[in-house]
């Protein structure tokens, strides 16, 4: 029971990370294409300014919880995904410092360099998280000792690449909507139009992913055994459709919330389908790591559950407070203050 609770919390934490940092990663990837001049670039940075750091802590928590609740999975998963994970980390490093460093030197080459860092440091993690999770859904070649028999190219199979593409597109729409929410004028219009355009591609990718999942993974088994669970992918699909409806109505906040729900429930669709596996082995089903054979002791799970039940709601409350505090559009006046990026 404890293992199942932690399995769910594990999935939810990753889903929350993708939902929150997803718009930063998406907008960072879009930045060279939607921001035409220095002022617009600064608007992009400042639209994410008060949020990216708090969002990234969900990743640290998701990683920490993988370590704490399922140490064997943490060990095998992270060492098997060695190269993509380090690329993600280097990406996140250059992305984060580009916020703080870019505006500190008034030199076009310096700014260009950090603009590129923001782009690549957003795009690479978005893509590779998708590739990694698609491969987790599909199973990776690990043996009973948790040794990975493959290379980074093993992960770049068609389903893995489709997963990467799906994540990038989800985040791009999410980020474009955030830009529409946080800005006004030309760049606001561009944000809305971009979200609208990319949504079509996203729809195609999402349908392809749902179909490919049938052939490439065994995620649907759980759904066939318990059809009630189909409500999860159903919510994901409805949320995706709702995103389009709200985009058409120019209801940006609603569209963004719908996009949040899409990301949340797409991730959960995969996670629930995996259960009880955390990391299936494509070599030997018996070598798969599950919530039961890779978990921590009941005592640790209980203590951690206590901490999570007390602290996570508090975190959610103060993060919502922060979003509310900085919900207004970033204006030229905001850019004139010395603390602006």
């Amino acid at each position, binding site marked *: 029971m404890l293992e199942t609770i932690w399995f769910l919390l594990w999935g939810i934490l990753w889903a929350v990370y993708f939902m929150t940092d997803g718009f930063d990663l998406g907008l960072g990837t879009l930045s060279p294409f939607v921001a035409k001049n220095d002022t617009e670039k600064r608007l992009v940075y400042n639209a994410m*300014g*008060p949020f990216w*750091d*708090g969002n*990234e*802590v969900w*990743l*640290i*928590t998701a*990683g*920490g*919880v*993988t*370590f*704490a*609740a399922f*140490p*064997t999975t*943490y*060990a*095998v998963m*992270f*060492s098997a*995904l*060695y*190269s993509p*994970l*380090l690329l993600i*980390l*280097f990406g996140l*490093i*250059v992305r*984060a*410092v580009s*916020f*703080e*460093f870019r505006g*500190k*030197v008034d030199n076009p080459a310096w700014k260009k360099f950090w603009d590129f860092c923001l782009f690549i440091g957003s795009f690479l993690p978005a893509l590779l998280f998708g590739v990694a999770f698609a491969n987790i859904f599909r199973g990776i070649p690990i043996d009973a000792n*948790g*040794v*990975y028999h493959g290379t980074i190219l093993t992960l770049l199979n068609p389903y893995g690449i489709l997963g990467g593409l799906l994540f990038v597109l989800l985040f791009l729409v999410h980020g474009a909507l955030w830009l529409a929410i946080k800005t006004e004028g030309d760049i606001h219009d561009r944000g809305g139009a971009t979200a609208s355009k990319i949504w079509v591609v996203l729809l195609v990718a999402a349908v392809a992913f749902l179909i490919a999942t049938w052939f490439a993974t065994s995620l649907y088994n759980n759904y066939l055994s318990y059809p009630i669970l189909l409500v999860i992918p159903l919510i994901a699909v409805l949320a995706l459709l709702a995103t389009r409806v709200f985009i058409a109505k120019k209801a940006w906040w609603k569209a963004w919330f719908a996009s949040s729900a899409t990301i949340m429930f797409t991730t959960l669709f995969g996670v629930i389908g995996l259960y009880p596996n955390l990391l299936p082995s494509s070599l030997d089903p018996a070598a798969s790591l599950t919530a039961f054979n890779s978990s*921590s*002791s009941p*005592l*640790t799970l209980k*203590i*951690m559950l206590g*901490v*999570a039940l007390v*602290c996570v709601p508090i*975190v959610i409350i*103060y*993060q919502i407070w*922060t979003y509310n*505090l*900085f919900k207004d559009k970033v204006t030229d006046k905001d850019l004139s*203050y*010395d*603390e602006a990026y």
Partner: protein
Amino acid sequence: MDVVMLSRLQFAVATLFHFWFVPLTLGLTVLIAIMETKYVRTGNEEYKRMAKWWGKIFLINFVVGVVTGITLEFQFGTNWSGYSKYVGDIFGSLLAIEATVAFFLESTFIAVWHFGWRKLSPKAHCVTIWLVAIGSNMSAYWILVANSWMQHPVGYVIRNGRAELVDFWAVVTQPFAVITFLHVIVAAYTLAGFFVLGVSAYHIVRKRNLSFFDKSFRMAAVFALIFSVATVAIGDLHGKEMAKAQPTKLAAVESVWETRKGAPFYLFLVPDEANERNSVEILGIPKFLSWLALGDSNAEFKGLKSFPKEERPPVALVFWSFRIMVGLGFLFALVGFIAWLKRKKVERANPLFLRLLTWMIPLPYVAASLGWIVTEVGRQPWIVYGVLKTSQSASPVAGYQVAISLAAFIVVYTLLGLAAFYLIYKHATKDPEPLAESSA
């Protein structure tokens, strides 16, 4: 080089680099919080300018600390999967708790502080910097509890082929952890104190913005004195705790080869590892080492030779790191005291002394790095002292993968370090903005 050695080097690079940014974060938040509190209490705009100006340096420094911390958390899995499997039940939970109770607080409210000057009342804004200070210091506590467990494992049993938690309270409150935390915190505050002293002295020598930097200097002088003295005192307690918990580290730190009662302390010695002796031992104080480390001048001090060779840490590196760290610790207390004496008429202080303070800024960084070398290299060959060897802990990854990632770490971190240093230098040598703008 094998995977273990490459992974150790990579971890050393990643940790030492991370800890060039963490101490300033820990100490400077508290100083900035005090500045802003003074502003709220007195209404004196100068304190607000101080909080903002030092805050800019803080933010540059903070972001590098944040991003380099994430790689540390993930490296336990990528490079040390044997370790992670074996101790995740205990160690993993401490990291997860750190993120949940402390890091969220720190990261969320630093953004509120950064962007919230016009959104919040002065009082509420001041609260946010205190929340950052509390968050970062709590964060340090959990990380150091985790590290202390590697130094002195308690509250566990070996079951199901791994270490499993049986007493969470014992892990979280063991004296070794509390003393390690205090040592690191006071050292970090010392570093921050000397940083602010050095930067303020740079401006005072040039007679620029005297009122602004006088105030900064005074606060930092009090800070540097209190915490450098505390570092020496708590460092001594930490040493005694280490003597009880880690006899092999103690022997290496003091480079003592033969076991003897009433061991003398040599003010100068040179270890000779190959021949299992010291090639130079001069200025000995009889029985002082036994008294210093073990609290009894006749106590038996266990030498390195009483441990099997394969259970001894590298001696010279640990010994020199420890000696230089301790020497620097005393230097900080002395200079901190002089700075404190001069704090009220600092613009008339000897310019040479002020310049010295500026040039001293790197030294606490050196001392902190050396402290970590003593802690981590001195624990070898164990990754968890007496329980699990480092050689059994690495991931089953290909050597070339680690070699490439190590090279990438060195390149990326060097560029990152240079950029951060340049930006901090650029800002620290710049005049603070005039009053009018900051009251907008």
